[in-house]
């Protein structure tokens, strides 16, 4: 028994990684240029936006909640980022040097975006904990609310940045690796540490496993759950900056569309249970990358647009069943 526990645990832990490796090998065989560094960097950049949100979503899901509002919150925070950016850029127009002016306006935009998303996350958390409303309902509601407000402010149009430095920042590449990819990995490292090596992380797992035991263990359950929503808010704020900078604009209708589904799917493919209690940050990163590879390969192989959904669905189910098969050997597990 002592022998098998680490084996089991490690498969639990490495299941998503194994699925990723299988997928990479299969993709390379099907399309050898898949493995080119530029293609891999593209994939990483493509997944980094929802990947960052998935990091925060991991906390929420482990704590036993869910957040459907991340996509429209991204649009909302991003809209304010661009509005702030434009306002500051224009009011500083005579200010020099140029770099400092750009820096200040971007800083202001980033601050506003993060602040708004933090407040949004806290609002979700507040309604869930103090309002005692199911997370699904709360965030379904705020999803509609944030999108609506974004449409209203943007009159269903686009927010365009007047500051081209913002766009350059969004597209910037550091040591050959795009900025959002750096940020994704940096945040993943930090949050993985938070999950595994801080009290808060431990408490999140405890609350998601058994709320009553957590309460009897003098854990402030409400606070822990609230903070999870705030963390996902923080991630949304960061993503909102990165994506609006990348596009140097933001569509009030479409920005952040379906981010919630992509983020949740990444988390679940990464091995975190929807029922809460345990999960892994790096797993979610891998989950996001798996989704990215699927999309990339659909394009690379030129799968018919009508059949893309078929292939995508099959590969997602297949990727997860690879993990399952190896872990449980047919034994019943929750």
């Amino acid at each position, binding site marked *: 028994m002592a022998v098998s526990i680490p084996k089991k645990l490690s498969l639990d832990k490495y299941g998503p990684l194994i699925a990723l490796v299988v997928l990479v090998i299969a993709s390379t065989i099907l399309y050898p240029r898949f493995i080119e560094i530029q293609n891999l960097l593209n994939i990483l950049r*493509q997944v980094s936006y929802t990947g960052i949100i998935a990091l925060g979503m991991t906390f929420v899901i482990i704590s036993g909640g869910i957040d459907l509002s991340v996509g429209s919150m991204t649009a909302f925070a991003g809209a304010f980022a661009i509005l702030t950016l434009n306002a500051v850029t224009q009011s500083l127009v005579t200010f020099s040097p140029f770099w400092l002016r750009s820096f200040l306006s971007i800083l202001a935009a980033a601050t506003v975006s993060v602040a708004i998303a933090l407040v949004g996350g806290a609002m979700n958390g507040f309604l869930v904990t103090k309002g005692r409303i199911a997370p699904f309902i709360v965030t379904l509601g705020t999803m509609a609310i944030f999108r609506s407000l974004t449409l209203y402010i943007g*009159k269903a149009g686009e927010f365009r940045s007047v500051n081209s430095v913002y766009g350059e920042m969004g597209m910037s590449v550091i040591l050959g690796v795009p900025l959002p990819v750096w940020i994704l990995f940096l945040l993943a490292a930090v949050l993985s540490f938070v999950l595994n090596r801080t009290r808060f992380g431990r408490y999140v797992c405890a609350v998601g496993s058994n709320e009553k035991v957590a309460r009897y263990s003098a854990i402030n359950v409400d606070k822990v759950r609230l903070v999870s929503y705030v963390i996902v808010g923080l991630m949304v704020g960061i993503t909102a900056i990165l994506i609006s900078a990348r596009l140097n604009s*933001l569509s009030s*209708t*479409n920005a952040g*569309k379906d981010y919630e589904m992509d983020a949740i799917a990444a988390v679940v493919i990464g091995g975190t249970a929807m029922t809460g209690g345990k999960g892994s940050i790096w797993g979610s990163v891998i989950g996001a990358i798996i989704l990215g590879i699927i999309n*990339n390969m659909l394009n690379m192989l*030129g799968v018919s*647009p*009508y059949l893309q959904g078929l292939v995508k669905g099959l590969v997602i189910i297949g990727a997860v069943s690879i993990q399952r098969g190896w872990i449980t050997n047919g034994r019943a597990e929750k």
Partner: protein
Amino acid sequence: KVKIGVSIPTADHGWTGGINYYAQKAIKDWQAKDKNIEFYLVTADSPAKQVNDVEDLMVKGINALVILAHDSAPLTPVVKKAYEKGIYVVSVDRGLTEEVQDVYIAGDNPGMGRVSAEWLGKALGGKGDIVVLEGIPCVINSERVDSFKEVMAKKYPGIKILDSQPAYWDTQKGLEIMTNYLQKYKKIDAVWAQDDDVLVGVLQAYKESGRKDVKIFLGGAGSKVMIKKVLDGDPLVQADVTYPPSMIATGITLAVYGSRNQPIPGFYQQKIPSKIILAAELITKQNAKDYYQPDSIF
């Protein structure tokens, strides 16, 4: 060998379904004619995904890109990158915010609203109460609705727009909203549904209500169902205004010629025109048979 990438939105409502259909049709037609062209067709359900798609296409080493952008501004940077790399860019329908394309071919959204308003205004004799069913709240929708309302306000002050609600270019939504309109307003003279899919639901709601007061229904985009009704002299549906999804096929053809630096047959200019705006054409009983294509899926 020429490699042409085609990036379009996912088929998520009737019109984009048409776009998907015509893109594949043009690709098939060209492949039958010319073995030296390779096509890559990708579909995106959001601007962010479409940016990814264009990147993926660039990895494939395309010579030409035909793109129907989800949104203008978000796609501009990546298309610009492609354009600057020397890829021949044909931008279809949704413009970009910078001039980073070789050819721009589009339907006329404000024109669609205007033509609809003018025909409807005339058909109503300049007075009456109408209701509007909008699309998904977005730029295209605003352009159509705003110009429709502008024409009405200026030219037909006797026409009152009772209500204007989003039906998301969705049949079932159209059905629901029309049911509610019929409940809310005791007298409606005409309906502008802006989209033929929505009009299907609207007509169903009207039929179910058993009411007889609405005289005119006007959709938009020119689907074969509605053109057939016009052709058959349906008293309720007497006209349609085009916004043809086949523009994507034309765009693909333009990309084939343009990327090979060939002139279009019959054109006396070496270069393809940099802007082509397809008129919002009014279809009535007189000309309907020219527009009716029973084989089309749209």
